[in-house]
């Protein structure tokens, strides 16, 4: 890394160097420096400050572990954790690192276990993460003498797995390494909580399955993708042509008080389109489906109007309702330049077989092969390529002005500006 602009007394824009201590050398968050996506040091700080402290991170759905002893291995940030059902009403989340030699002992993605045993030296933990016993704690008897064993003062109670704080609401499970984190409801804030409860209103969820993709881009780009209502009506032909997401749809952009979480709320238009929308190159007037059942939408009472609500819960998850397709999308970073994106599709316990079929059919629009979502992964990959080649430069998020405010339309990048306002505060940058 070369010496920064400050030392040379020049502004960053005239100098191709990156400062050693990053400073936000832009007027406000309508400009975002590329180094926010390319620096490994920033990435490590983000894991500490955003994923491991002060925040609740998504781990899964209760429906994934319905029986006592069911577990699912997943991650928070880059730390492997196990979500396990201890009893009918108690779920624990434990770090997947043995207290003895640090091995990531749980290798199965899911299963059922009475206890967890690290195979290396058979240290045995119960489903609450307490160490139950270690082999040869009291040594071995040889020639009438006890030999070896743990120290006198070794106490199994001091060697539990790392236990996380757990919050469940409406069948969704969040956890935090930080036991001083604010209550989950306060973390979401009242307005986001309303939209969360709309989708998870107490009905039992039914797991439909997963779609997993590895996207070679910085994890924040996926948060930004779902805080950016500008692109869907332009990039996604399907959305434009069938009115699912278009600039002239009735829409709202909302945030929590910290601007970290957001909801993009939209109601489907008629699809015939005003001049502004049909002039965009991705609008295909003549496009007709051979099989219209891809878009056989049935209005559900719990929507209370909006046909799409896309929520970003910072930093770890996106909650999707796009007509009848509902899913959680879990962001799992691996390094500054790549993340795994895990989609968990579900339905509700009172769904008819026809509704289940409809949710599955509409899922063809989403995920790594989706008519709509496949190109999101692609544009994120190519954005990262641009950042890597020009780390001294910055991107622009000025649609709707430079302020951060809620809107009653979708032609604004306010949610991205809001996210970086929060990011700067937490990161101290």
């Amino acid at each position, binding site marked *: 890394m070369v010496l920064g602009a400050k030392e040379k007394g020049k502004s960053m824009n005239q100098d191709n160097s990156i400062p050693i201590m990053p400073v936000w050398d832009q007027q406000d968050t309508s400009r975002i420096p590329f180094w926010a996506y390319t620096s490994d040091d920033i990435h490590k700080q983000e894991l500490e400050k955003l994923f491991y402290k002060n925040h609740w991170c998504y781990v899964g759905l209760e429906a994934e572990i319905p029986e006592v002893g069911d577990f699912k291995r997943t991650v928070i940030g880059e730390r492997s954790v196990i979500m396990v059902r201890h009893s009918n009403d108690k779920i624990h989340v434990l770090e997947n690192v043995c207290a003895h030699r640090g091995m990531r002992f749980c290798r199965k993605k899911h299963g059922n276990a009475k206890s967890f045993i690290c195979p290396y030296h058979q240290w045995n933990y119960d489903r609450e993460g307490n160490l139950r016993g270690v082999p040869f704690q009291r040594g071995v008897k040889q020639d009438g003498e006890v030999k070896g064993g743990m120290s006198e003062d070794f106490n199994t109670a001091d060697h539990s797995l790392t236990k996380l704080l757990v919050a469940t609401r409406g069948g969704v499970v969040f956890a935090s390494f930080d036991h001083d984190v604010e209550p989950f409801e306060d973390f979401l804030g009242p307005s986001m909580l309303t939209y969360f409860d709309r989708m998870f209103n107490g009905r039992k969820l039914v*797991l439909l*399955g997963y779609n*997993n993709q590895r996207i*070679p881009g910085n994890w924040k780009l996926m948060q930004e993708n779902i805080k950016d209502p500008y692109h869907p009506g332009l990039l996604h032909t399907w959305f434009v042509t069938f009115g699912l997401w278009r600039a002239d749809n009735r829409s709202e952009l909302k945030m929590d008080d910290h601007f970290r979480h957001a909801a993009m709320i939209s109601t489907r238009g008629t699809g015939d389109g005003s001049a502004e929308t049909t002039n965009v190159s991705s609008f*295909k007037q003549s496009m007709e489906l*051979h099989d219209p059942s891809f878009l056989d939408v049935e209005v559900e009472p719990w929507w209370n109007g909006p046909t799409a609500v896309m929520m970003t819960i910072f930093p770890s998850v996106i909650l999707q309702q796009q007509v009848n397709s509902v899913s959680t999308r879990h962001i799992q970073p691996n390094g500054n330049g790549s993340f795994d994106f895990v989609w968990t599709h579900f339905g509700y316990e009172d769904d008819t077989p026809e509704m289940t079929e409809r949710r599955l*059919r509409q899922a063809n629009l989403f995920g790594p*092969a989706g008519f709509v979502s496949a*190109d999101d992964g*692609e544009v994120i990959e190519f954005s990262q390529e641009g950042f890597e080649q020009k780390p001294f430069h910055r991107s622009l998020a000025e649609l709707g002005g430079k302020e951060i405010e809620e809107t009653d339309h979708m032609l604004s990048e306010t949610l991205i500006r809001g996210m970086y306002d929060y990011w700067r505060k937490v990161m101290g940058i």
Partner: protein
Amino acid sequence: MGTEKYLALTQFYQQYAVAVDQADWDTWLGLFKEDCTYKVQSRENYDRNLPMAALSLKGKGMLKDRIYGITETIFHDPYLQLHMVSSPVVINESKYLIESQANYTVFRTKNDGIAEVYNVGRYLDHLQVSSDGIRIKSRLCIFDNDMILNSMIYPI
């Protein structure tokens, strides 16, 4: 199964690979029956009896819409596919129906890039035999990859 029929079956699997590798979508569509199903599903979902799939198409209409999608509507990095398909294993057969499976490996090559292993798995098929030759009633592509490398545009 007689050698002649098995030879025709083997030829069919290779013809399918040629069609997708050449991005010859008309030929690809022609290998399916009207009321076909075509699914690309992770082994994780398949083994756990979870219905979700990366792609789940029912009927030739949906297949045509998918082709329209990949040629006209989805923005993506151009890439080439190369399929290596094993000899099929016949699971069941009657005069007009064959149930069979074969392993596949798909290599992906992007512009300015080198070939990489993109997707590996197996086809699980129900095929119809008639005087026109063999057509697909249902093809399930079950892939081992836990992670799809970013996106999946073309059929497997």
